[in-house]
């Protein structure tokens, strides 16, 4: 096959996928950037170039700062806990304990449920008086009237727990796969040396799991800024914006207030943040993880 045919064939094969990518990923990304410098078109006023005005408006908006803070807390709450839980689950299920297939299934089930269904279930779980949580607290002599999702102090924690519950089992799968690829001989060698289980975990298993951890971490970070389905169902960002996350705010700006220019500017901010986070993770962590 000569070079010219290879080139033509190659690009022809790529063409359909690239066309869709260009139309629904690349162009919208550029379009978002352009729109963020223009005002929102209104019926009586055409759109016009406003420079950094949209960004200024966002930075002056207390709800943006609250959404950002909420989202950071949401990330800080979900990422380490779900990763640690996933690792623990994988270690347990990797041992041949009684009923491990059932246990593995229980851990993994939240992953196959729609987030929206999950949110409904948890909404019920948190309901004052009727909910399982209220009933369990009532049975132990506590109060059953706490409005978990209606209070500014607890709402964000509640939606964070839902996210952890949904994600941990998904991440477990990757750790399980990685654990099963660690050669048995390593464990035998370590035990001959008299290493304790903790030492074996810390010196052998944990470092060998690092590439998986990086992969899971990247996913967890993206998810922390992408998951909003449960917010829409459970709290609609409330009470008093206590659970408003960045993507939820974009949704609200774009489709409740129809201020598409502000939504575009906020999208640019979110994408820039995600891009920086990805660069940091790959650039910084990847250098420290190469064992293979």
């Amino acid at each position, binding site marked *: 096959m000569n*070079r010219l045919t290879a*080139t033509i*064939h*190659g*690009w022809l*094969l*790529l063409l*359909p*996928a690239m066309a*869709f*990518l260009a*139309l629904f*990923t690349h*162009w919208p*990304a550029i379009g*978002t950037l352009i*729109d963020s410098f223009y005002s929102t078109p209104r019926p009586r006023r055409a759109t016009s170039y406003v420079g950094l005005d949209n960004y200024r408006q966002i930075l002056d908006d207390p709800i943006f700062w609250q959404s950002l803070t909420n989202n950071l807390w949401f990330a800080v709450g979900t990422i380490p806990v779900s990763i640690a839980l996933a690792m623990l689950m994988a270690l*347990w299920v990797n*041992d*041949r304990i009684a009923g491990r*297939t059932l*246990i593995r*299934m*229980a*851990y*993994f*089930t*939240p*992953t*196959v*449920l*729609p987030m*929206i*269904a999950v949110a*409904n279930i948890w909404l*019920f*779980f948190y*309901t004052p008086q009727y*909910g*399982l949580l209220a009933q369990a607290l009532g049975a132990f002599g506590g109060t059953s009237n706490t409005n978990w999702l209606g209070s500014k102090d607890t709402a964000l924690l509640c939606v964070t727990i839902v996210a952890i519950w949904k994600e941990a089992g998904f991440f477990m*799968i*990757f750790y*399980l796969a*990685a654990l099963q690829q660690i050669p048995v001989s390593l*464990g035998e060698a370590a*035990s001959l040396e008299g290493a304790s289980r903790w030492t*074996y975990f810390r010196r052998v298993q944990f470092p060998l799991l690092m590439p998986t951890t990086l992969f899971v971490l990247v996913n967890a970070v*993206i998810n922390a800024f992408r998951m909003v389905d449960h917010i*829409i*169902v459970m709290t609609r960002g409330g009470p008093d914006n206590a659970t408003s996350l960045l*993507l939820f705010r*974009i*949704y609200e700006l*774009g489709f409740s207030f129809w201020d*598409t220019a502000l939504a575009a500017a906020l*999208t640019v901010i*979110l*994408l820039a943040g*995600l891009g920086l986070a*990805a660069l940091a993770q790959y650039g910084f962590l990847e250098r420290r993880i190469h064992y293979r």
Partner: protein
Amino acid sequence: MSGAVASIGPYEPRGMWRWLETIAAWLLAILWVLPLAYAIWTAFHPPEFSARFTLFAPLTLDNFARAWEAAPFARYFFNTFMLVTLILACQLVLCTLAAYAFARYDFPGSNFAFALVLAQLMIMPDVLIVENYKTMSKLGILDSIPAIALPYVASAFGIFLLRQTFKSVPKELDDAARVEGAGALQTLLKVYVPLAKPIYLAYGLVSVSYHWNNFLWPLIVTNSVESRPLTVGLQVFSSTDQGIDWSIICAATLMTSGPLLIGFLLFQRQFVQSFMRAGIR
């Protein structure tokens, strides 16, 4: 999960520790299914038992019947079915072609094109909602099933996954097919696709469960019964049509996730392995 299992490893706990680990793992598992179990209890019992646990509470399917009648769930099921089929069919074709180009053709610009593909992993359609809404509006297809599907049909994840798989196919097989006189597409269909079957299965399961469950974009782009998928239908149903009749909401919730849940329970090994396969590459 792969094949041969050795005897108990030196670092599996023994004796009392084994018991402790088993109990802890079970406790966490019970905690993990508790919200779901509670919803199942409520869905299968009359409303007056929705928050009371009595061993002999009568079982009923009445809540499901009421939920089914209260909203056009049959239509929602049909829409979701069409949606995931459309997306998966397009994804399989587009990703296979593109992956083949990246795996077996050496042509100028291929690295740049691959970078453009991978950009989608970071710039997800989930985030570009405002701009994609404008595009759909310009195309005049708002509130239709293709509008939900289009942003997802070219999947960077699928292209990447299949490219890795095709690369592991021995070059000799490709050459042999060409010597026999097969063209590029024939070689792809006769040699590569059959060898990648497990990966297609894995990708298919992941894609179907992702799009069955997807919510935000369909919520934005649809506003009629004719195009709403199940997730959006469920949300509309539980936030407006019903007050807070939990037994009927739980029934509707279980109903919408039912097919996936049952599929998962029946084929849980394939599901778990698929998610794993799709992940480790």
